[in-house]
């Protein structure tokens, strides 16, 4: 009796789960075949994917990289016994034209300039995007880069960007001097006036004088020679970088208690948002031309960049306003109770939170803007889509559609996907767990 016990004293050893619940089979049972309906959906989806790939992959795997014309591609494919409308891609067009699709009509011996500018762009963005991994001093380079980049792309004398930067220095010193003598509002006005006078009136002669003494600079490349992805990226980057601060200012202006400021901001935002981008581009390309006196050389790319920036800024303002509206009123009151003035409160308390909330919206505005740059092909600028039409108008490549569009789509996807992934990284990084 003593050696009988009804209560188990030791646990059974753990057994491996059944084969149908682990590994790949378990995963498939759980995720793909968890019921008759889901099983049907899975099979239908697999069939669909197979059907698409069975057409696309053989088409893409096509030994036509060295082909010199569409007819040549067809000969190569016919030799392999592949005939018909969808027998294979003609990649020769990409081999022959990819450089043109990247740089447009930029002089080949100067390709290093846009490439270097593009690399430096990431150096300049690093302190903004990945602040914790790079030295803080690099932010000075980021501040100078907006003046450096146009000079590298368009060329000209080195005194141009220096003189433009000097305008800011002049404004600063004027502000300091007048501030101590008269007061801050007068100083602000004086600084703006001084900078504008410098840029519009004095800058030309001073630059001419300096460059005649020390002729230092790059060969000039005219805007007409810009094209392809370089054009898209230039328009996109400048518009993105400028539209964010502009959008923040507009959003704050819209929330402001100052009636005139508010009216201007609301009017601007609603007007720009009420007009399609293509209309603004037509205004830039044709209407401005008619209103400006003949012979005024107001650069077409600059006009387009300005329009794209204004357009994007209006949307950005609304996205940021959404972030501002999402902040509890207590945050504003808390800032007030700490005795912060308006700008301190915005900088230290409101904006960091509002911008964090708005990150997904901001980035999707950026992505939208970047893709919208392809609209410039309608006003005759040769961005990738515009160039693809020119390439098809080459008798050798007339009739090629998918290869070119595929290449362009891949490029845009890489950029937009990159932006999207970065925004997700940023959201995770800034996640403070108070949600």
């Amino acid at each position, binding site marked *: 009796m003593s050696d009988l016990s009804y209560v188990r004293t030791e646990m059974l050893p753990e057994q491996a789960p059944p084969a149908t619940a682990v590994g790949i089979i378990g995963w498939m049972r759980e995720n793909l075949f968890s019921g008759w309906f889901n099983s049907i959906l899975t099979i239908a989806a697999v069939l669909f994917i197979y059907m698409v790939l069975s057409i696309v992959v053989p088409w893409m795997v096509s030994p036509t990289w060295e082909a010199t014309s*569409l*007819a040549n591609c*067809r000969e190569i494919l016919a030799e392999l016994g592949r005939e*018909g*409308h969808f027998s294979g891609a003609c990649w020769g067009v990409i081999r*022959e*034209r990819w450089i*043109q699709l990247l740089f*447009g*009509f930029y002089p080949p011996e100067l390709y290093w300039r846009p490439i270097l500018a593009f690399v430096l762009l990431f150096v300049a963005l690093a302190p903004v995007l990945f602040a914790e991994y790079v030295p803080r001093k690099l932010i000075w380079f980021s501040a100078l880069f907006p003046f450096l980049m146009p000079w590298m792309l368009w060329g000209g004398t080195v005194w141009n960007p220096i003189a433009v930067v000097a305008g800011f220095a002049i404004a600063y010193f004027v502000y300091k001097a007048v501030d101590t003598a008269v007061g801050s509002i007068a100083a602000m006005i004086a600084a703006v006036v001084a900078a504008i006078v410098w840029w*519009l*009136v004095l800058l*030309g002669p001073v630059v001419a004088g300096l460059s005649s003494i020390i002729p230092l600079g790059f060969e000039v490349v*005219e805007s*007409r020679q810009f094209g392809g992805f370089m054009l898209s990226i230039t328009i996109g980057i400048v518009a993105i970088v400028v539209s964010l601060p502009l959008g923040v200012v507009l959003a704050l202006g819209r929330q402001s208690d100052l009636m005139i400021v508010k009216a201007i901001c609301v009017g601007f935002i609603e007007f720009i948002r009420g007009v399609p981008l293509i209309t603004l581009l*037509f205004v830039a*390309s*044709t*209407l401005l*031309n*008619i*209103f*400006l*006196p*003949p*012979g*005024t*050389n*107001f650069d077409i790319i600059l006009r387009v960049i300005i329009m794209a920036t204004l357009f994007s800024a209006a949307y950005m303002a609304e996205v940021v306003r959404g972030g501002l509206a999402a902040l509890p009123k207590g945050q504003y009151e808390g800032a007030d109770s700490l005795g912060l003035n308006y700008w301190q409160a915005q900088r230290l308390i409101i904006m960091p939170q509002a911008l964090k909330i708005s990150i997904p919206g901001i980035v999707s505005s950026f992505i939208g803007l970047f893709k919208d740059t392809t609209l410039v*092909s*309608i*006003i*005759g*600028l*040769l961005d990738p889509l*515009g*160039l693809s*039409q*020119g*390439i*098809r*108008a*080459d*008798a*050798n490549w*007339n*009739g090629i*559609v998918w290869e070119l569009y595929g290449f362009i789509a891949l490029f845009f996807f890489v950029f937009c996907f990159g932006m999207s992934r970065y925004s997700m990284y940023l959201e995770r990084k800034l996640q403070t767990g108070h949600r």
Partner: protein
Amino acid sequence: MKKSVFLGALTAAGLAAGAAAAGTLDDVKARGKLNCGVTTGVVGFGAPDANGEWQGFDVGVCRAVAAAVLGDASAVEFVPTTGKTRFTALASGEIDMLARNTTWTFSRDVDLKFTFVGVNYYDGQGFMVPKELGVSSATELDGATVCIQTGTTTELNLADYFRSNNISYEPVPIETNAEAQQQYLAGACDVYTTDASGLAATRSAFEDPTAHVLLPEIISKEPLGPLVRHGDNEWGDVVRWTLNALIAAEEVGINSANIGDLSAAPGNNPEINRILGTEGNLGEMLGLSADWAKNAIMAGGNYGELFEKNIGENTPVGLARGLNAQWTNGGLLYSPPFR
């Protein structure tokens, strides 16, 4: 300085536009470059090649004008224009001339205030159908679906033609020629209609061009030519007579092979001498150098050479001279005399 002009003139822009439009020739000479509006891409007529050099039949006219005015066929700034921007680009002075397969019509000439200086290609709207359809005439197209580019004169011509022949059709609107090719090949429409030169170029790109036929009917007149702004007749004369020089050169037998000999010394054909500037002072009357026409012809050859090189029968486009032959060969090319 430029900025202050800019600000001041902004207020009186309309006036300034009218006043400064005179003197394009001087502007071009001062600038050292001709701003020539071209298409963003039409097979054979204008497109950038792999090196970014513009090539084509219309582009050849631009180069000839640049050579005549500036003595340098490469002194051209090609400004790509679309169907929507071409006329404002010219009217606003962004370009000096437009050579972009543009049809000479009454309203463009009169209402839009342009001067068409001549015709460099006589085109007309045609039809292309698959051979297997068994159609041999456009009058048999009753009930057909027709791919047609929207917003062009071809759309209106088509409606007129079918109405006057009392037959029906179903339009399939498309935006670009590339789209039309895809739609037509995919069978979305039975017929594709556009300018006959465009049809020939499109068909030449097909996998099997012989499976498609161009119907004999040409249902519209599409005289394509270079144009300039109204109100600057000196500049209009320069462009007009440069085009005429190319045409006349073919007629009298000047080509890029023999032009060196012919222009070296006056020969015994007085018209050749006058064109090439070895006799008379035609260049001076235009405000150009004596060898203006010689430079223009040397830029890309005479009219016939330009035609053969870009759109002629030995090119993929493969167009016959047809209406674009010299009047002596039964065509419509007829340059007024150089006298």
